[in-house]
């Protein structure tokens, strides 16, 4: 199925990617679990930066680290720029998610997330202010590392990945919002999101409105509890974004 791209140097076709055994890791497992309780109670640390990429209109870097994993993603916003073709009365948003160094997500899963994010930002960006223009957003998942070293059999490994992409979505939303603000694009409100066990809820207007809902794991039990916990995270993320932007602004003056 995969036709080799002749324009790139992809190496010999017969070469196989390295397959790492999982039989030799057992000794490590005990070591990492013993170190776990120490940092499991600590909160997720977030670090935000904006405006460090030169050749785009707005950019943001979000790095997060908690007991389970470490994530870093870079967002670049290009636009509003003119689009070819006929007149459109409002702007169009496109979002591309790109696998970074660790190519762990399928492209179709990334596209599903990007179309979900497009749904969110269609309701967050004040698109009627940008007729006949396109806003292109590129999210680059630099790395996304498991800090717990576990030996997993195949089945739970695939499950792990499913829950991971949903844990990334709040950070994607934070970084896109920041990058849009950095590019000076008008927003209805600062969007942010929270994630609880594979459920992502994105809010605006102080949690009064939901702009995105994504659930990957489990059944529909305890919806309101989930919403409340996501809202807490939303408020935390939003406050962090605002303080980051204010700090940035004070630096520039």
């Amino acid at each position, binding site marked *: 199925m995969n036709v080799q791209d002749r324009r*790139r140097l992809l*190496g*010999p076709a017969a*070469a196989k990617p390295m397959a*790492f055994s999982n039989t030799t890791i057992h000794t*490590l497992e005990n070591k*990492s679990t013993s170190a776990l309780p120490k940092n499991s109670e600590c909160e997720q640390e977030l670090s935000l930066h904006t405006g460090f990429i030169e*050749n785009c209109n707005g950019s943001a870097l979000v790095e997060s680290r908690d007991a389970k994993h470490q994530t870093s993603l870079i967002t670049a916003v290009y636009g509003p720029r003119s689009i070819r073709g006929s007149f459109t009365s409002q702007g169009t948003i496109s979002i591309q998610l790109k696998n970074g160094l660790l190519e762990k997500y399928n492209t179709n899963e990334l596209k599903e997330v990007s179309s979900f994010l497009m749904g969110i930002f269609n309701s967050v960006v004040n698109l009627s202010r940008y007729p006949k223009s396109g806003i292109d957003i590129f999210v680059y998942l630099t790395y996304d590392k498991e800090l717990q070293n576990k030996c997993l059999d195949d089945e739970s490994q695939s499950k792990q990945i499913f829950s991971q992409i949903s844990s990334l979505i709040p950070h994607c939303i934070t970084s896109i919002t920041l990058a849009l603000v950095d590019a000076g694009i008008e927003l209805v409100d600062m969007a942010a999101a929270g994630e609880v066990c594979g459920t992502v809820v994105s809010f605006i207007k102080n949690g009064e409105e939901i702009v995105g809902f994504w659930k990957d794991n489990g059944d529909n039990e305890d919806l309101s509890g989930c919403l409340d916990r996501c809202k807490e995270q939303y408020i935390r993320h939003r406050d962090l974004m605002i303080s980051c932007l204010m700090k940035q602004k004070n630096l520039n003056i």
Partner: protein
Amino acid sequence: MAESTALETIEIHPINFPPDVLARISPELSLQRHLSLGIRPCLRKYEEFRDVIIENNTLSRYVDTENVDAKNNILGSNVLKSGKTIVITSITGGIIEENSASIKDLDDFGEDELLEVTKEDDILAEYASVYPVVEVERGRVGACTDEEMTISQKLYDSILHSRILPKKALKVKAGIRSVNEDGTFTVLYPDELENGALNGTNLKMKRKWSYVLYAKIVVLSRTGPVFDLCWNSLMYALQNVKLPRAFIDERASDLRMTIRTRGRSATIRETYEIICDQTKSLPLMINLQNIAFASNYGVIELDPESQLQDPNNAEEEVDIDMDDLKSVLIADLDTEAEETSIHTTISVITTPAGNYKQLTLVGAGAKITPEMIKRSLSLSKVRADDLSTRLNK
């Protein structure tokens, strides 16, 4: 002032632009104005390089030697920041079976002697390269750009011809995994054993494998030409590559085809699967003396007409001889203005010891004088020396 056949005269007012607007509408003029003051639009001096900040091996699976990141398949990495540009290089690997068994490969003992004999014929065949994929982020989707393709190809060729990566270093010294009586696995590597206790017949494998290295180079925030940055980043990354040890199952070490009577060929192949060790690794043995660093230069003629003139002696300056153009050497091209208006370029790849690996001269417009080549060569050496010390920090 204006010549007009019409009755009315038209008055032309000079328009003033702020510097940043002028830089957008006429990068050439803006550059010349800056150069006449002895600086460049990025406020560097003619021969001043951008500072380089590197972060080595922070992304690879072997970051923490105690605790190998099981799901990470990066073998070596580098993040390089130069000016505003960020280059992220990650090296991953694959394994290829050498099926075209030449005489050299079949007999391991005489390999070195044979190498000696055939050395004159084909030295390059003893070296390998990495397969680089360069991605320059510029807010577009779709096919790769010409720039990405040429940089990838140039990196591939330059590594091969710089003789940095000997094929010997990529050979897999495969171990053998055997199942003990209590159901646990042990892996034996031929070179780890004391005086070759097991080095007899049962560890001799007819099949050979070698590693293939891929480099993914992502350039964020591109502000000027990026080949140098990619090359330097790749050099740093290559130096911290660690190759995982690989092994095959005991059953596969001998090639008797009578393992299964009812099995099809597909099931037999499966047992030869070569698997990499989760924790054990060996550093990649590259030719360290051939590690070279790249730098680039541009040559531009100073246009006397766009000099910022001192109003006091404006009269004198007009008489400058237009044929006698003075050109200057500019180091480490950056910014759009320099990239679009400087077409004459010199690029050099050299080792810190002054072992020159590559020199490219592109003459377009401005004349490249022998002095300039000399100057750029000596600057490159200094630069390479400086860059090579960063790794040991």
